[in-house]
């Protein structure tokens, strides 16, 4: 920083200098104090967990921690089982389905707005998606658990129909757009497609739901759930990974979108323009030139999304059923680490083995998200220096 000039030696100046020293000291102390406090979180969690492994007499082995059962219940005559495996499994499963839903949508949206959208519309769109990110988890979880879950319970075939109808309908829209007269095409520019496709998508949703009973009768003998159970061996729980994936996907889309869009639109423009000047279409230049250049940024966006999905508590708590199962099926529930903490920690005895184990779970979550985010940050820093080297805007 810039150092101040030494003031002249007058009493008033001495006082000012003293005040300056004091205030600087105060700011330094406060700043370091805050930073240290914030950093102390991990240290504190580790200290609370340590007796679990160090204390003689009741220390746990890794074998015990890696059992496939988590039963901390305090029912009489039942010894508690503390296998962390189902919790880890549930967390990863929830995050997996969420990312499966969110990553394609978020990256598609990012590509569209970075490449095709007029800048003014883009600057309006970003705050809108920020609002989507600010949607509280408890509200999303409530809608998922109490509105979406009962709906999907009755309309599983409708959801399947949506999965097929939406992409097909989009492609139909694209085909139809190409056949439109030029004047119409001018009025519905491709850059605004993200907006004018919305009513079309809504129409598709309604018609897919309307068609789904016929589809179900035609393909699955009128009962998709029975068919799934008989042919694929998939049981159905009303609060399942599919719902968690949808809800948590909804919550992580905006974060991934924002970072990926930054990375894509930060690619020096001359790269894409050069490719197009050589005859590539916009999509070819994206796929062969822009995306490889921006890949680290896109990767870090996905990583940060994964960190968010692993740590999200309320959505999983409210939409997953919280049963400690170890299946891969999207139609069954799971119990995640964060949800277990929220449910069990208020009742755990301070200092007890259950209490410390939940602290261990929290420590694992902390370390995992911290590492993932740091890695993403490092990757991102690499990306920025790469852009600078490529001679574009940074």
């Amino acid at each position, binding site marked *: *920083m*810039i150092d*101040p000039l030494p003031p002249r030696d007058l009493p008033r100046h001495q006082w*000012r200098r003293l005040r*300056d020293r004091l205030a*600087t000291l105060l*700011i*330094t102390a*406060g*700043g370091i104090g*805050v930073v240290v406090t*914030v*950093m102390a*979180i991990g240290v*504190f*969690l580790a200290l609370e967990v340590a007796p679990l492994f160090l204390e003689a007499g009741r220390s746990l082995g890794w074998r015990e921690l890696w059992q496939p059962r988590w039963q901390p219940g305090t029912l009489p005559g039942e010894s508690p089982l503390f296998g962390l495996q189902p919790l880890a499994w549930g967390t990863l499963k929830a995050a997996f389905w969420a990312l499966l839903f969110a990553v394609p*949508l*978020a990256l*598609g949206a990012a590509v*569209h*707005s970075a*490449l*095709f959208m007029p800048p003014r519309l883009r600057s309006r769109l970003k705050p809108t*998606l*920020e*609002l989507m990110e*600010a*949607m*509280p*988890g*408890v*509200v999303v*979880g409530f*809608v998922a658990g*109490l509105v979406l879950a009962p709906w999907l319970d009755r309309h599983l075939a409708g959801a399947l129909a949506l999965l097929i109808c939406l992409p097909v309908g989009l492609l139909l*829209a*694209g085909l139809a757009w190409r056949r439109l007269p030029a004047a119409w095409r001018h009025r519905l520019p*491709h850059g605004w*497609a*993200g907006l004018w*496709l*919305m009513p079309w*998508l809504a129409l598709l949703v309604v018609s897919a739901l309307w068609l789904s*009973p016929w589809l179900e009768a035609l393909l699955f003998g009128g009962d998709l759930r029975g068919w799934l159970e008989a042919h694929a061996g998939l049981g159905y729980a009303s609060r399942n990974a599919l719902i968690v994936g949808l809800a948590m996907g*909804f919550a992580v889309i905006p974060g991934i979108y924002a970072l990926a869009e930054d990375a894509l639109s930060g690619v020096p423009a001359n790269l*894409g323009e050069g490719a197009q000047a050589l005859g590539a279409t*916009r*999509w070819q230049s994206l796929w062969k030139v822009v995306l490889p250049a921006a890949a680290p940024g896109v990767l870090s966006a996905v990583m940060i999304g994964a*960190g968010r999905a692993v*740590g999200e*508590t309320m959505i999983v*708590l409210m939409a997953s059923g919280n049963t400690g199962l170890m299946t891969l099926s999207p139609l069954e529930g799971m119990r995640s680490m964060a949800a277990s*903490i*929220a449910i069990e*920690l208020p009742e755990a005895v301070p200092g007890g083995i259950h209490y410390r184990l939940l602290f261990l779970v*929290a420590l694992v979550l902390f370390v995992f*998200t*911290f590492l993932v*985010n740091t890695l993403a*940050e490092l990757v991102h820093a690499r990306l920025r220096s790469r852009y600078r080297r490529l001679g574009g805007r940074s």
Partner: protein
Amino acid sequence: MIGRARLPRGEGVWPWLAAGSLALSLLMLAGLLFLLAVRGMGHFWPSPLTLVTLEDGRLLAGQAVREERQPNAAGRERLYLTGNRDLDGAIWRWVAVDEIAEESRPRDLVVLERTRWGSFQGRLLALEERGERVEGEAAWAALQARLQELAALRAERDRLRDEIVVPLVRRMEREPLAEAELARASARIRELQARIAGGRLLLESVDGRRLEQPLEQVLRAWRPNAMSPPAKVAAWGGGVWRFLAEGPRAANSAGGVWPAIFGTVLMVLLMSVVVTPFGVLAAIYLNEIAHQGRLTHLVRIAVRNLAGVPSIVYGVFGLGVFVYGIGGSLDEWFFADQLPSPTFGTGGLLWASLTLALLTLPVVIVATEEGLARVPDHQREGALALGATRVEMLTRVVLPMTAPAMLTGVILAVARAAGEVAPLMLVGVAKLAPQVPVDGDFPFLHLERKFMHLGYHIYDVAFHGSDVQAALPLVYATALLLVLVILVLNLTAIFLRHHLRARHGALPRR
């Protein structure tokens, strides 16, 4: 961004899927907001009451809620909210649409909102009070007048109890003289209670079962089918107002959310009082005073990453350090006479706000740092060249220019804190707090008390209530309220940031 608009000839299907995924994301957001708005606001609208005659001659009166395909048959069935839990044992009734012979909306059907058994839907036969009996249309007019009277009496009774009796009882231990005053107030309350009690309503459900209803349990009565549109709007406004201003009833499944609003706002206020100075201090230290070396760079990255640490981890930290650690010690030192019942050694308002302050600290630090980085170096150099000390330079030149950025940071922190529920479940939220944390008793603000929170209220009512279906409209309304608060806060932050960018341009440093 690339070139002018060209014909995307031969680009294949991918651009359309990309555009579609954006449209789908926006559609989901719009759908969620629309759902919350319609269901949340619709709850307060006095919806019409349908008298349904079934083919076999049975009658029922209810509000149609939704229609579904029948699970194992071709037809459709409709769900009616019929109320009358004391008569039927349930408040919902599924009816096959094919079985409905006739639907009508008689104007004389009444809906009563009661303190017990939920709502009543049916006909009013007579009103009996002090030996007088009023029947027919006159009974309706008499009922309305009497209900207004009752509301005034109840309000006075509650005011007496909250403002005079409860503080007196608390003071009793120290001031025995308060006893006379207390006796006077209690006598007055008993007198009011006697005036409230006594009346009776003679009611009849549409299928002819009769019911005697003590009038003191009736809160409101209306005839939805006879109301004019302006009257409905007025009733809707009244409903919204009661939702915002009243406390919950019937195990949180009815009534309003005022204590939750109060608790949320108070907690967030306390949090911002803590987080603003510390966040700004840390940002100033990192950006202006610390040596800009590798270590500072690492610390900056770490602080930024702490924003991505799951909120539940902060809750665990708060529980371990604040509640059991600091709170437990405070109890041992100052409140030893009350042990083993904890004072500060359990979740409470103070610990909740401190935990959330820690959680939102990175938000404030990052936003303030961004603001500090926007202040051009020549401003600092100019101030120093004119003889200012570093602190004078900071307080007179740099900080005023950073003020909007700090404000943005604090607003974003508040928006994040208002929506966080998971850490609060560990450090002090309550499903029903008997006492608001602020009252007339010294020290007026009770930091150790538990409090209610809008987000937790949603979770609790939606997942721990006895009849989720019945409480659902209330949950929608609460969720809408929470989302509105957060949207307004975020929009303010976005607006401020936009204003800031317009004034200072893009990032000049780094």
